[in-house]
């Protein structure tokens, strides 16, 4: 190959094709094939081993009548909506503050972003300790003399998901801040001058001029946050392991429990197919907006 002076078209393609085999295999066999396989087997009654014995929508019926699944969905919805709004709001606010030509910008950015380098397991365990009812925040405040103070989200089924949210926000907001900061840096200096000439207030400049201009950045951030939310698993396992009881279960954990612990493969496949469907519902409108008119890339 190296020595040939003018490789013909077929030969050139051959080399690139051979080099792309791992990519093609991954895309077609694992991503497409694997997903299709799971969807097909979600209509079977597979238990310990996958068996092609179709049972129609039985698995889905059982899934949607399962209390555990409903709790999982509810938790994901609460966590998802809160984390989406708060991450965008906090991320943008922090980025805007850092963008005000402040001193120690790098220090602040380093502080806000470092949790993102940590794993969800580390995040979950750290916050599990801070929210520990006896030694954590609650214990400390009680130690100050406020005996009736109560802040124990991880042992209260009603608010446990917010305890996880605190940790999730801590870990993930830095990333959105960095994306927003990059977006803010891309806004022309003339825009700022123009709004100052027109005497538009700072808050109004942000909400009416800057945010609309950063629409693509917001969309990107939205997609990243949304795809992260659906994957929520390690954090829950580390922080509460789904407890107390099943109060902080999430769909990803449901899938893994049924596939690898409860040996009810069909149920796991059905649940994971539902996760796929929810991703498609988010992804398709975005892909349409993003790549609808122009060519991909």
């Amino acid at each position, binding site marked *: 190959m190296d020595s040939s002076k003018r490789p013909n078209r077929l030969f050139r393609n051959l080399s690139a094709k051979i080099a792309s085999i791992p990519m093609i295999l*991954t895309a077609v066999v694992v991503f497409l094939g694997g997903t299709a396989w799971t969807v097909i087997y979600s209509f079977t009654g597979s238990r310990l081993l996958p068996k092609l014995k179709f049972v129609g929508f039985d698995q889905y019926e059982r899934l949607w009548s399962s209390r555990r699944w409903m709790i999982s969905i509810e938790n994901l919805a609460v966590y998802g909506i809160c984390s989406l709004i708060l991450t965008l709001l906090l991320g943008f606010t922090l980025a805007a503050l850092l963008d005000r030509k402040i001193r120690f910008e790098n220090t602040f950015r380093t502080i806000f972003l470092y949790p993102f380098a940590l794993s969800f397991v580390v995040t979950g365990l750290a916050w599990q300790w801070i929210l520990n009812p006896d030694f954590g925040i609650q214990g400390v405040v009680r130690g100050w003399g406020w005996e009736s103070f109560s802040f124990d989200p991880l042992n209260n089924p009603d608010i446990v998901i917010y305890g996880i949210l605190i940790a999730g926000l801590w870990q993930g907001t830095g990333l959105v801040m960095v994306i927003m900061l990059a977006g803010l840096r891309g806004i022309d200096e003339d825009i700022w001058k123009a709004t100052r000439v027109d005497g538009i207030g700072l808050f109004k400049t942000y909400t009416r001029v800057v945010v609309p201009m950063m629409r693509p950045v917001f969309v990107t951030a939205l997609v990243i946050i949304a795809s992260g939310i659906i994957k929520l698993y390690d954090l829950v396992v580390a922080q509460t392991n789904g407890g107390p009881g099943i109060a902080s279960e999430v769909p990803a954990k449901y899938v893994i429990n049924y596939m690898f612990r409860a040996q009810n493969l069909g149920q796991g496949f059905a649940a994971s197919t539902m996760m796929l469907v929810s991703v498609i519902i988010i992804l398709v409108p975005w892909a349409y907006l993003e790549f609808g008119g122009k060519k991909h890339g």
Partner: protein
Amino acid sequence: MADTTPMSFDAAVLTEPRGPKPRRRLSRRNIFLYGTLLLVSVYYLLPLYVMVVTSLKGMPEIRMGNIFSPPVEITFEPWVRAWSEACTGINCDGLSRGFGNSVRILIPSVALSITIASINGYALANWRFKGSEVFFTILIFGAFIPYQTMLYPIVILLRELGLMGSIGGLVLVHTIFGMPILTLLFRNYFTSIPEELFKAARVDGAGFWGIYFRIMLPMSLPIFVVAMILQVTGIWNDFLFGVIYTKPATYPMTVQLNNIVNSTQGVKEYNVNMAATLLTGLVPLVIYFISGKLFVRGIAAGAVKG
């Protein structure tokens, strides 16, 4: 907001009749600005501080005092115990085993995934063939498919290959799931290299591999560093694949950590737990603090284009 004109100059021009107003360092705006930033910083730094402080205390002190107070008597025993004595089930040889496993998973995974992805990216940028963009699009959309849908088919795949439960199997899994983002990263980078260079090399008779090794590789060291940062932190922090595709003897550090801390038997040793947590977080933290701007660039490149 580039640093072209100082603020005071602008203010002078724009509010001419009043004349330039000297900027006080402690204006209300600055107090609000730095106050907010400092407050948020506390939220971000608190867990790290609490972890460090807890890991340096003895158990009696933890039971007595509060988690925010600095240790009265600094002890490194929890760190030693976390590293070499902490128990998971019947094994009591500490996190060192998980660390060893994670290193043995990390090195081949990073090497393999970056090698494959860089070649993919290069082929996609410079040697497009019929269908290459289709495969690439599938690959990118694959990055959004929840892992849960592909978990079991991969179990079957690994079983067929005889790699289930082994470190080799996990390396393969990391290579597969790292591929979309890394391929995108390399493809975008190679596309930005001037095409004239590629054409000149072609005229001089260099082929696919010749151009890759002699031109593209030497020119793209920064992007390799970015990819490495991305992969090292990503693979080190992985929990899901570790827990599913390995067995207790080959558990990576994150899985072992979770088993140590969340095991229900025995008395909870919070100081050992926090030392173990910090030990697990140390590798990505060190990479983060050393790499600084490159880390930001890596996640920005991965995120914004994704």
